[in-house]
């Protein structure tokens, strides 16, 4: 779908036409209504790149991340890491390749385990090394994320939010995965700590040549972290392209509205006018045609009936009727 990367190296993560449909309200009396949480998403990420996925709450970001972690099975579609298909195989195979960093470091660490146990747990699950080797690996990875070795016997409740998020990152890295899926890794942290964690993630990416899928709704964080940005709306990517271009010259009206929604510290500017009109549509009854048209300021008659095709403009892919005349 997207030709975002030009180099010929094999992509680390390929997702092709991924769909996940939930049945809502199903009982033995009646059939459920389908909710297409993720509806035909494709993406390709090369080694060392960061792809940010942005979008409103409820757009399917979290479901997409769970699919890419192997925590849920896709209804259709394909996930490959280094060319190796992962859909339908053992969860353990996923685990060695793709690891998560979750949003809330207060619920992502088991309060009953010490830091050393938490970080070393994946090694035990995969039966890697002797106890001494495991300890050495845990200490090494703790050092990588900037945690003093003495924390190894501490409990999560003894640590600050930033320190806990470092533990979560250490646990994700202990198995040397290819891809980290960071689901809003800083949104639960203080602003001052956010920067430290973002810098740590950037440093680790360079040191370990890691690939990130970075899910966020904070566009300033995205701007700092991402090489590529995918904008998600009701389960689909409506725009995907290099971060600089998407954030400076947004092509899709939804991306434009998202960028306009960034709050500034300047109190005189007031709240931004989003021109988004009605609220988020009911994902059980998505609008016909372009799913964004009821809220779109540039909506045309065709938008209400025909689903827009994918247009490749410059280096960005965009799904919008505004570009119908443009030669792809």
């Amino acid at each position, binding site marked *: 779908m997207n030709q975002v990367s030009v180099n010929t190296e094999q992509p680390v993560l390929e997702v092709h036409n991924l769909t996940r449909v939930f049945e809502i309200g199903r009982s033995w009396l009646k059939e459920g209504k389908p909710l297409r949480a993720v509806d035909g998403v494709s993406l390709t990420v090369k080694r060392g790149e960061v792809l940010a996925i942005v979008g409103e709450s409820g757009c399917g970001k979290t479901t997409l991340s769970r699919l890419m972690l192997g925590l849920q099975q896709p209804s259709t579609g394909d996930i490959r890491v280094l060319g190796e298909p992962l859909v339908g195989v053992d969860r353990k195979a996923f*685990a060695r390749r793709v690891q998560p960093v979750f949003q*809330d470091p207060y619920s*992502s660490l088991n309060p009953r385990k010490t830091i050393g146990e938490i970080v070393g747990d994946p090694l035990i699950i*995969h039966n890697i090394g002797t106890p001494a080797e495991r300890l050495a690996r845990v200490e090494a990875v703790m050092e990588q994320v900037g945690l003093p070795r*003495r924390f190894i016997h501490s*409990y999560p*409740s*003894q640590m600050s939010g930033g320190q806990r998020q470092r533990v979560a990152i250490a646990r994700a890295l202990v198995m040397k995965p290819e891809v980290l899926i960071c689901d809003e890794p800083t949104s639960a942290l203080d602003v001052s700590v956010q920067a430290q964690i973002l810098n740590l993630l950037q440093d680790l990416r360079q040191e370990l040549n890691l690939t990130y899928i970075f899910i966020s709704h904070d566009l300033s964080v995205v701007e700092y972290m991402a090489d590529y940005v995918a904008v998600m709306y009701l389960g689909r990517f409506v725009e995907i392209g290099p971060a600089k271009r998407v954030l400076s010259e947004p092509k899709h009206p939804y991306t434009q509205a998202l960028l306009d929604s960034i709050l500034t510290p300047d109190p005189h500017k007031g709240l931004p006018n989003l021109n988004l009109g009605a609220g988020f549509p009911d994902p059980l009854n998505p609008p016909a045609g372009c799913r964004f048209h009821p809220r779109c300021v540039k909506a045309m008659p065709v938008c209400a009936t025909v689903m827009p095709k994918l247009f490749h403009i410059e280096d960005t892919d965009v799904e919008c009727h505004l570009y119908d005349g443009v030669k792809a």
Partner: protein
Amino acid sequence: MTLADITSAPPASMAKAADEFATLAPSPRELMRRRAKSHIGFLTGMAIILFFIILAVFAPLLAPHDPYDQNLTARLLDPVWGPKGTWAHIFGTDAFGRDILSRLMYGARLSLMIGFTAAAIAGVIGVTLGIVGGYFGGRVDAVVVYLTNVKLALPVILVALSIASISGGSIIVLILVLGLLTWDRYAVVVRSLTQQFRDQEFVLSSLAAGASHARIIFREILPNLTNQIIVVASLDMAIIILIEAALSFLGLGVRPPTPSWGLMVAEARAVMFFKPHLIMIPGAAIFLLVIAINMAGDGIRDVTSPEGRG
């Protein structure tokens, strides 16, 4: 210290690490110990339970007389504070001339043993059902909820009475019946807690690391439930001790002449207006043990999860 030591100060990163460590909060265990030390209910309850346990365990050494020894010349003696009391029988003797204090000590054995083992059996059943239902949800959970509802609809005392009267009150049967009849509280508590923990990100992390469901249940969820299970177990044990006493009182629990507190109350019925202490002493023992277990259970909850206090 030489000049070289000063100039080669540790790098800034290490100094920062030391700082971080200095601000480390006390460990959960240390906090628990501190709360336990200042919790009067917990300390009192535990002290009384410990007292009864010592009496029960060392009954053969501590008891002044054989609890089965009848002495018809020394029937219905007053306790030491009564008009004709003697130090030979501190709490007096019953209608067969058996020493009350000795029977009380051996009775503590029986009450504690039945309470502990029956509560453990109920705990194993209830925790297993609750954790499996709460974790897997769906149809598995529906079965667990159904079983729990069926159990809640059973009148415990009535069922225990009928089974005891059919099988004729052996201790093993009593333990099994009480264990099989009181697991519902564990199942309800454990199921709802498991549902809360199941969706926590640390469980997702473990799943994403490739852990099996059994590993997640035993290593991630169960350790977070132990405190609440102990609290439920203490309440369950108190209830079981009361039911055992009630069954024995009705003649459907353990059989005479086994020393049991409930039986002692029952045997004293005939003379309760002349020798009220024969009922009051075993009654007080039941009351004291049950209230101590409840106090300790409440205390454990306060000590282990102060955030849940309210």
